[in-house]
């Protein structure tokens, strides 16, 4: 395959960025999108041009490190697929592919396609946990949990924290990410004692980080590589309203 790549280049957080075009020949349809970028970087290095910086780690769709807006879609054109799992067979010979970083005020660009998503960590630090110390936990089977609740918790907990939901949202809202964590813990008995406090503190932190609000575009759900349902946002809103009106 012969491809034209329009890639966002930006030296660092302070300087302005711009698109730059590259052509790439002999791309194997069996290679992954990131392997295609590896090849581009090999060629750039050989020509003495700075390689394109992008984030990736596990390259099997679970760590959430990779990102990229590919032709305007977070993680590219395939449903339920992270960029690292996207393969070049999803494109055609002669295509022009536009590659940008995830864009959101709360995700500043650090270099080329690399953004800072630490706002997500700070939201979890605000309350995305069960406050138990190591040691002294009761036997795992002492607390029966209905399979449907465990399954629902797992549906939400499958979030990989990649930020595609934010990048896809016209408001750059982080509500799907936050709702997934709140929904995971609210589905389980272990999450009940701190349920109200968690909803309050995580939502407040999310707002403070500069993420937008949800206006029901459902772009987050469509972009989510783990297919997390936007229904969790509705549940989070209920929890938040309840928490704001309760004393707990």
């Amino acid at each position, binding site marked *: 395959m012969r491809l034209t790549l329009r890639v966002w280049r930006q030296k660092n957080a302070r300087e302005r960025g711009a698109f730059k075009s590259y052509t790439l020949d002999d791309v194997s349809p069996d290679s992954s999108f990131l392997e295609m970028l590896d090849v581009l970087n090999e060629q750039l290095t050989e020509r003495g041009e700075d*390689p394109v*910086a992008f984030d990736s780690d596990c*390259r099997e769709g679970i760590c959430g490190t990779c990102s990229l807006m590919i032709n305007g879609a977070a993680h590219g054109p395939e449903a339920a697929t992270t960029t690292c799992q996207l393969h070049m*067979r999803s494109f055609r010979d002669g295509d022009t592919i536009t590659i940008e970083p995830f864009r959101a005020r709360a995700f500043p660009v650090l270099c080329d396609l690399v953004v800072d998503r630490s706002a997500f*960590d700070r939201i979890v630090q605000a309350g995305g946990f069960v406050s138990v110390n*190591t040691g002294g936990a009761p036997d*795992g089977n002492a607390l029966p949990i209905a399979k449907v609740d465990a399954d629902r918790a*797992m549906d939400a907990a499958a979030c990989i924290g990649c930020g595609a939901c934010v990048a896809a949202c016209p408001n750059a809202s982080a509500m799907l990410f936050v709702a997934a964590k709140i929904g995971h813990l609210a589905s389980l008995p272990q999450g009940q004692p701190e349920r109200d406090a968690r909803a309050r503190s995580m939502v407040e932190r999310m707002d403070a980080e500069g993420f937008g609000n949800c206006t029901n575009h459902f772009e987050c759900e469509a972009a989510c590589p783990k297919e997390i349902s936007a229904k969790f946002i509705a549940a989070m809103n209920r929890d938040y309203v309840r928490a704001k009106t309760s004393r707990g």
Partner: protein
Amino acid sequence: MDARIPAGPLAQKWDRRKFEMKLVNPANKRKYHVLVVGSGLAGASAAASLAELGYGVDCFCYQDSARRAHSIAAQGGINAAKNYQNDGDSVHRLFYDTLKGGDFRAREANVYRLAQVSAAIIDQCVAQGVPFAREYGGTLANRSFGGAQVSRTFYARGQTGQQLLIGAYQALSRQIGLGKVNMHERTEMLDLVVVDGRARGIVTRDLVSGAIKTWIGDAVVLATGGYGNLYFLSTNAVGCNVTATFRAWKKGAFFGNPCFTQIHPTCIPVHGEHQSKLTLMSESLRNDGRIWVPKQKGDKRAPDQIPEGERDYYLERKYPSFGNLSPRDIASRAAKQACDEGRGVGESGLGVYLDFAEAIQRLSRDVIEQRYGNLFQMYERITGEDPYKVPMRIYPAVHYTMGGLWVDYHLMSTIPGLFVLGEANFSDHGANRLGASALMQGLADGYFVIPYTIGDYLATTKLEKIGADHAECRKSEGTVRDGIAKLLAVRGKRTVMSFHRQLGRLMWDQCGMARNDAGLKKALQEIPAIREEFWRNVNVLGDGESLNPALERAGRVADFLEFGELMCRDALERRESCGGHFREEFQTPDGEAQRDDANFTHVSAWEYAGPNAAPVMHKEPLVFEEVQPSQRSYK
């Protein structure tokens, strides 16, 4: 080298030692500061647990978030001796299975402790809200897993590592939010600071700004994972590396059994020259999938055109009592054998079938989808083939490294004050790790061992107060800066990746699934030549004062280029076959690993002897009090 194994009967050793160990007064804990490097299962659980106890903690990871460490990719599950299934499991059985699975090359006392604390790990994770799979009655579900005849594996769909890591990450996040842990993401450890023979700090590089900084602590905990990425193609994340442990080795920590690497039998086969990593398909698939190759050499028919009678279900044939669930090293070697005989499938001939047709017929497609849906999806995404219709093709790939820094029973290395946890240490898996035991060990070390043993070290050690301006810190910083400047100054013609690929290929061929004297000697000649060219001809663009992924990788590959030699040396020295270390010269008449207990019942612990000297090998004899080593048989 004193392994500090407690006296007394095996089952009482840990309790006895817990009592013998000195405690740090609760009010004094905040006066101590611990540096934890790595935020995977071992690092995150250690950092969180130590902070909960009251110690001051700084935690470092190279990823952009602590939640992304490679523990996240473990799919299948975590073992624990709960015996919830009433199928005959016990602490002793988990201990025995792990020791035997490791081909009797692990330390009895450590493995027993691992089995003892396994049950508490599950309880801890449940309390954190880890969404383990449940039965309809609300109890925890279990499955059997490669190499075990009881169902003791707990799981969360095919994402157990992710869920356990998120549990530990949440515990860590809580401590960060409380101000008890300072978390440093995108920060890589590049040297260990040793003062008066004790680990007192680390030197790091901020991967965004390039800033080099020294951190001082009262103890250093390395939980930096394994070195499988040395092979270039492995199931590790692309960032996984040996740098932290290797640089600690150069500062005096012994390296234990570096040649013990695990080749996982069920990975998606290699497809092209630009491939950057291999993807594991959880070995839980072997519970229902049947592995086979054609009986005929070079049979290129489509799998559904090959009649039942012309298929060789070789694991079921050779190992009838374990069949498709045979341990990893055995299953991997059998696949290699079938392919070496010319019976491999797929274009390259380096693959075997993992077939679900029979299971789908017996259990229905729905059941299979429920059990393995996400794995099937992943397979289809990568290969473009539908495994519900066509059998999967799999081939072994480098997955885990049992070797690591040598540690004693307290998980302390030969440098006092340097503790090593999880895959980064050598301790519990011997020459072969059983499935679902890595998660168990990482969390055992972090939640339930280090909180005790580090307290004993701090309570019994008098440390002088030092600052980052100490001469040793300056020296370490200088070494780090020089190393970076040297990499940037070469400006040669070849990319870092091309060297990494070259080294990986050589190591896979000569020090991979099968090793022999001639091949290892060849590798020992070729590695220095690759290294020499690397330092003369590598091309790292950009500078050291900004985000520069090529520079990060160059430093890691430079370390691999030295470390590969240590692996080959160790593999050459160990003139026996055991577990994942298969020396072709030492096999039984039917091709199984032939141990030599008389000469090799020891841990090989390597000491760095300087830049131009051969490393020195020390032996820790393995003494078996409870279990008599036997020939592993899974027939």
